């Protein structure tokens, strides 16, 4: 451990944060539209990983189904953006009881995706309380596996296997920026807000309660912290974050179908959260960068003049993950509990 006094350490962290914000704010000026799109994805993954880190890193519950929660957010945005009119136009027959308007601005569907996915997460979290460890992982896995089937089953709303196409993104409110830039700032604007939300939450009473039940449920219970309540809350909050990420993703690619959120996405999300550091909000940016760029560079390594197979990203991810688990002595058990948090680990004060 470095022996920095706490205030200096905090100041350094804030300075680093300000630096990252400044870089993100000007980044699109220095790159082409394709690159801007890639960094929009980084912002989207950043949001999903923030939520997953609250669930896994803070409350100690594992989820192999986070991609599915993103999918729910994406469908909410797609359906609301098209509206009843849009759906009918594409030959679908949404049931009458569904409160669908005539299509909304995509950006305005984001908070709705947040709420809907959050509620689904809460509902999922309640029965999941009885599960822990491997069985919980399996239950979330089941959600990820069944999402495509469910989406295909409710074809009249989701467009089935063919999916739903959204209107091409355009800049709203008469703003003078190109569409890709708008999407970039929209994603990172949401990311900034949700980062602050996560930051406030993990430092508040609820954040301490999450860490307490992760570290020891009995002692937490004796202290008056209800594991049931806080585990469910963690599911709700993390799904809400995933919903926003999925919503932004639907807007960005202007298309959703059952294969937009494959099982592999859920697994890569979990891997990225471990790479970024469980229980560390600042590490999430590393995980998000890796999730976006590693597949690209693993398949087409720079300076190598040759492409690898489609399996390469998975392999590289696996290798990186293993290296991290070895480098961090908490090991595989720490995957559930406490892979130490290199960036936010409180530093002893020198005052004593």
């Amino acid at each position, binding site marked *: 451990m470095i022996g920095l006094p*706490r205030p200096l350490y905090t100041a350094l962290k804030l300075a680093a944060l300000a630096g990252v914000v400044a870089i993100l704010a000007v980044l699109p000026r220095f790159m082409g539209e394709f690159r801007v799109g890639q960094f929009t994805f980084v912002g989207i993954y950043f949001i999903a990983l923030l939520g997953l880190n609250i669930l896994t890193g803070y409350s100690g519950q594992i989820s192999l189904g986070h991609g599915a929660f993103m999918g729910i957010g994406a469908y909410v945005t797609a359906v609301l953006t098209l509206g009843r009119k849009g759906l009918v136009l594409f030959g679908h027959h949404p049931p009458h009881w569904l409160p669908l308007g005539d299509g909304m601005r995509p950006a305005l569907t984001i908070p709705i995706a947040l709420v809907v996915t959050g509620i689904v997460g809460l509902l999922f979290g309640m029965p999941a309380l009885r599960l822990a460890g491997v069985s919980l992982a399996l239950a979330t896995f089941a959600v990820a596996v069944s999402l495509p089937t469910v989406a295909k089953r409710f074809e009249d709303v989701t467009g089935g296997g063919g999916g739903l196409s959204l209107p091409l993104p355009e800049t709203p409110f008469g703003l003078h920026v190109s569409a890709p830039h708008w999407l970039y700032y929209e994603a990172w604007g949401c990311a900034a807000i949700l980062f602050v939300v996560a930051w*406030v939450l993990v430092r*508040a*009473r*609820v954040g*301490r*309660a999450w*860490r*307490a039940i*992760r*570290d*020891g449920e*009995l*002692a*937490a*219970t*004796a*202290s*008056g*912290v*209800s594991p049931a309540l806080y585990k469910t809350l963690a599911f709700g909050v993390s799904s809400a974050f995933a919903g926003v990420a999925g919503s932004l993703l639907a807007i960005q690619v202007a298309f959703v179908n059952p294969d937009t959120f494959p099982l592999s996405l859920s697994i890569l999300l979990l891997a990225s959260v471990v790479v970024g550091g469980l*229980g560390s909000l600042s590490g999430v940016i590393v995980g998000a960068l890796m999730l976006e760029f590693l597949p690209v560079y693993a398949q087409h390594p720079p300076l190598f003049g040759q492409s690898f197979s489609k399996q390469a990203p998975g392999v590289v991810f696996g290798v990186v993950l293993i290296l991290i688990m070895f480098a961090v002595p908490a090991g595989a058990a720490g995957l559930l*509990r*406490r892979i*130490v948090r290199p960036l936010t*680990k*409180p*530093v*002893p*004060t020198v*005052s*004593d």
Partner: protein
Amino acid sequence: MALLEVDQVTRRFGGIVALSDVSLELEEGTIGGLIGPNGAGKTTLFNVITRMYKADSGRVVFDGRNLLRVRPTRVIRAGVARTFQNVALFPSMTVLDNVLVGAHTRVRPFGDRTGKALARETLEALTLSPLADRVVAGLPFGTLKQIELARALVSRPRLLLLDEPAGGLNHEEVGELGGLIRRIRKDFDLTVFLVEHHMNLVMSVCDRVHVLNFGQKIAEGTPAEVRADPAVIQAYLGTDSAAA
């Protein structure tokens, strides 16, 4: 009326009767001792009182309320806090955060200045303040026990259950513990229920001592009375327990 009344509590684990019709009372403001050989049922009684275990029958009345109808997470709100025989802290959290979790029921969800003040005050009372920002994992065992005590005290309980607070402490630390228990009883206005194998400690701090053996209460009285009780001597001689 007694602050805590345990009334004919029975708890079985399969064939083992861990508590058999146990009754006892604790007067407000006193330090009560609970002793007995290994496996006598002491921890089980604490677990029943704090609702970690269900009782098969019987009642536990605290301040006129039947605790057995209180949910486990509400026991602390009712005014009963505890420590654990095998130290159960939150290892990856700081000392201050550990204590703040103990204050969970007393702090507001956000912006909990009062909670922080309360926690710091409690750390100060146990001379733990210099360690406030340290992560718990890796601290010495004696310190961990003190942090656990701070976490229990921060909720400002009326009844404090201590399960072998001297276990694992060195000779010197045990010597200080007696004074500490008496001091916190006075400063925090507590009633204390103490499980201990260290007979010197029990004899020096307890007002009244209750003795369990194989789940049954075999004696009760002042430390001097209990020490002289033939049934107690027999119970301890009948085991390998180095005590009395």
